[in-house]
């Protein structure tokens, strides 16, 4: 009935890819959404090549926030702050201007297309990106 809670989204949230703490994190960042109380922590381990080697996340938030963190957990390896920033902008464009989802590895973000009609929930998807980007910047 509600297209936001399609099995795809629920499955992504349940998979929780990359959930958990990282013992050898280079940097760990926690961000809050004061509007709904969501809180996301990303631990990031950077490789010698300046790219992300591993991530771990802890999400106290809604299904959308969990699903978004899960997508990041599955795809963050090999990215850096700049490339993740570009992905975030694509996601924003998808949500706010109806742009297509990114191609390639991040194509799973298309799952979130129905969220575009619910402005109050955009932040739920963007918050994990905020955390991982900050955690992978120096």
């Amino acid at each position: 009935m509600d297209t936001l809670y399609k099995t795809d989204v629920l499955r992504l949230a349940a998979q929780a890819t990359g959930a958990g703490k990282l013992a050898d994190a280079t940097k760990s960042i926690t961000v809050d959404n004061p509007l709904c109380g969501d809180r996301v922590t990303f631990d990031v381990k950077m490789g010698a090549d300046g790219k992300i080697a591993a991530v771990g996340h802890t999400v106290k938030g809604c299904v959308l926030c969990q699903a978004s963190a899960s997508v990041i957990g599955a795809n963050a390896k090999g990215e850096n702050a700049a490339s993740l920033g570009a992905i975030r902008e694509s996601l924003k464009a998808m949500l706010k201007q109806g742009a297509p989802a990114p191609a390639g590895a991040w194509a799973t973000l298309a799952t979130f297309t129905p969220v575009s009609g619910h402005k109050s929930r955009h932040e739920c998807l963007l918050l994990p990106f905020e955390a991982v980007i900050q955690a992978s910047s120096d």
Partner: protein
Amino acid sequence: MKVPSQMSFDVEAIRAQFPILRTLVHGRVPLHYLDNAATAQVPEAVLDAVRAHDELRRANVKRGVHALAEAATDAYANARTKVAQYVNAREDREVIFTSGTTGAINLVAHAFGATLKAGDEIVLSGLEHHSNLVPWQLLRERTGVKLRFLGVTEEGRIDTGDLEELVSERCKLISVTHVSNVTGAITDVAAVVRAARTVGARVLLDGAQRASHGPVDVQALGVDFYALSSHKMFGPSGVGALWGRAEILAALPPFLGGGEMIRTVTLEKSTWADIPARFEAGTPPITQAVGMGAAVDWLAQVDAAAAAAHTGHLADRILHGLRAIGGGNRRARVIGPQTMERRFPVIAFAVDGAHPHDICQILDSHGVALRGGHHCAQPFHESRGLAGTTRASLALYNNAADVDAFLSGLDDALSKLT
């Protein structure tokens, strides 16, 4: 509040007066509006009064001698009389129109706050809405007053057992909510007033959640200040009121400066008008006050006891329904009193593993409007280890179909989320 088994309350006749209840959510499902603690809807009588004022009597008030100005001034004065009667004020001038409850409490925090000094104490509670907490924190920064906090009982009530310990000779004000916007609990105002009187402290009640449930009697309550919002009591947004005892208000300095609140102005010095004008700087929310007056008229012709019985009965069904939600981690916990004794139909609950915003979103697809989050009562939620709760709040126009939609929608949500 007792819930009689028989009810004589024509909810469908009430519903017919609220145009918005006929709209379809997402163009598809009937609206089941259970977000009344955030904002209540407006009956036709109020919509008409607002429009009629702007079409027939619109002018700035006071000082004008032309026909429209006199009509507008009369309408504004009548609105004040109506609100004064609704709260049983001794005199009309005890009612000050403000931008809302928040505006009213900030007014007291500045005008009454200006009479306090470092070391004076203000007693609040751990159950307050941010609007009855942050203004006092800001006052603390300005003047060094000390804030002390009554606890909250396991049941979700302000713990008046703490009064004796917290209310000392240094206490100048006790400012607490009349009804909690999270737990629905009605505060034991008599105990608060008794404690305040022993030390000569003033009492402010935040009536935002109480005012939609029928007339208030500030004299019987024995308090000194009472704050309310029109938009929560079926009136327009943009207006509310502070009631204060005339002798107290009359002794306070002004808060905002501007037109109409002065007696004389020179570049060097100004002197202040009498109450209520002293506290109504600038052009007031005239049309909105008139609309608030119409809302009060509308509320006054409702049988408040029958309405309470009606909403109490519906709330009982929600409380039962939440308790019946079953087993494992699908258990719903009501955050507040578990029965309708001494509480209003504002029901917050938490479900382990289900985020309030997900619950609200799925319920929205069923046409049910709920609110999720900390409801501007972050300290209380933190004290329970909760980031947020989901809240269903009832008004007299809610019906059995609203409760059914809520309960079946919640079932759907929890089957998806847990």
